[in-house]
């Protein structure tokens, strides 16, 4: 573990698309056991930043350090291999497959040439109960029968099970009811307890206040505020998002 428990550090990251500057000189430390919310209006640069740290885009300038080592993330798959798990809005689950088969997709457990489904099911069950998803009736059922919150739980549980170091959640609650959102927050907090560095991208500022330990505001491609959650009001956050004022 590197100093201050920093899992990922970006140093003066910029991204240009032709003449458009999408991101300029963003330096940020993301620490384990901390939930960092990236906030900002559409086009402020937070999605570009997330795409860079999840390996989808490569920065035009600047460096990325993962657990103290300088890294170049050439693809999303490479970021995953390092331990950076991104949960997209579409969740990356296969509806027609069982929970356990989804959970272990691409990392199947085999016993000789055959799948060890019994062990996959028991491991899935153990990980899901560890993050607090307890009322799934049957671990062998198809993912399509689950609610949006339960599906988020599977994606988050998957990051925990495979010892990921960082979890990036893109709008994890945008399609959920209030009650389900609360449940998903519980799962995210459970992942935080496990020491993962967590990045959430959310539009809903009330929800951001409820879940984040730290706010990072993007405004016109720059980082304009980076501060801990000291109970700032929704109005203050909203002003920072709209006008780039410090928090």
């Amino acid at each position: 573990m590197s100093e201050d428990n920093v899992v990922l550090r970006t140093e003066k990251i910029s991204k240009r698309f032709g003449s458009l500057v999408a991101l300029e000189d963003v330096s940020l430390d993301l620490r384990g056991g901390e939930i960092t919310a990236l906030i900002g209006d559409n086009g402020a640069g937070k999605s570009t930043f997330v795409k860079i740290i999840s390996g989808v885009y490569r920065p035009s300038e600047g460096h990325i350090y993962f657990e103290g080592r300088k890294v170049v993330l050439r693809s999303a798959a490479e970021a995953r291999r390092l331990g950076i798990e991104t949960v997209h809005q579409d969740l990356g689950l296969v509806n027609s497959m069982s929970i356990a088969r989804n959970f272990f997709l691409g990392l199947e457990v085999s016993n000789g040439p055959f799948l060890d489904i019994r062990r996959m099911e028991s491991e899935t069950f153990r990980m899901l109960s560890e993050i607090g998803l307890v009322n799934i009736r049957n671990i062998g059922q198809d993912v399509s029968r689950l609610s949006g919150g339960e599906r988020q739980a599977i994606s988050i549980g998957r990051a925990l099970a495979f010892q990921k170091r960082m979890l990036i959640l893109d709008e994890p609650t945008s399609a959920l009811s209030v009650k389900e959102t609360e449940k998903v927050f519980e799962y995210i907090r459970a992942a935080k307890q496990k020491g993962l560095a967590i990045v959430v991208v959310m539009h809903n500022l009330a929800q951001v206040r409820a879940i984040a330990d730290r706010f990072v505001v993007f405004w016109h491609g720059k980082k304009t505020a980076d501060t801990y959650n000291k109970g700032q009001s929704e109005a203050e956050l909203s002003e920072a998002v709209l006008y780039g004022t410090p928090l």
Partner: protein
Amino acid sequence: MPGASKEERSVKAAQKGLEQNGVPTRQLISHNWLWPSLVRTREIGIAVAGFLLFVLFTIFSHGQFLSLRNWTVIATSAAELGIVSVGVALLMIGGDFDLSVGANFGFSGVIMALMIAHGYPGVLALLACLAIGAGIGLVNGLVTIVFSIPSFITTLGTWLLFTGINLIIQGGETISILKYSNVLHILGGSLYGDFTWGAVWWLFTALIIGILLHRTAFGNWVFAIGGNKMAAREAGVPVTYARIMNFVICGITASLAGAITLGNLQSMQVGYGSTYQLESIAASVVGGCALTGGVGSILGAVIGTVILSMLDSGLLLSGASPYWYEALVGVIVILAVAMHTKIGHFGRGREEV
């Protein structure tokens, strides 16, 4: 708990903790690990439909349908379509199609027949036949993936291409093998009375591909690719490799069926197997494979083939015109898909067929 693994102990501990908090956990882990529950529901549905057909034909044929002899005929005549359908089902579950199986069947079978007729050893001819099947599958897979063409279109093209090449080589004449060949006997000759080796090969192929699909990591990838290709790719599944393998396996099963037909009839003709591309899709769909991919089973494809074969012999024994066969297959395909869709709605609240 002596002998229990670390995971088992922690699962027990987790269950105990949940139960203390009033959460019932007895049903949490199903251990229905042979098939996912929905697949079983589909198969039971289609098996019941098959049984109804069985009862109907038994009544209309005054019991003849029930005879061992009739079932020997069904098993023998279904074997070739059955083997083709097993490969086609695997491919469909992975989200692809192969319309070239009938042409592949005829082309690789004709080459094998020509080789034997020209005095090449049977084993070599068989290996060449299977290699041609695998090659056609590989071409289908590569063209589909490299040019991002829907496999339906690629294989429509290769269907016509290989039928044409076959006609150029053979001109539509029948090649008859007059001398006895051990290899041909073991492929399609008599095992006991009317019961031929073909049915054994069908069972064997279904078992191997069934295990591959339902009990290995590769099979998990196939279901994932058919169900949600993006998700499979994001999860690190080697999508291109798995799709090409599926095409190759499907090509091999089609050519194996061609070899078995040659063994059974001791003759081969370009047109043999020309109805199989659509019949194999029909058998797979009747057995519960979704046209959209991601859903189905090898057992389903086997049951689907048995149902089509039952129709064939049942009509004959009931004294109906065999011309009704195609019309009834059409009706059964539509009824089966409607049934699977309803089961899908009932089970998961969304359409999958």
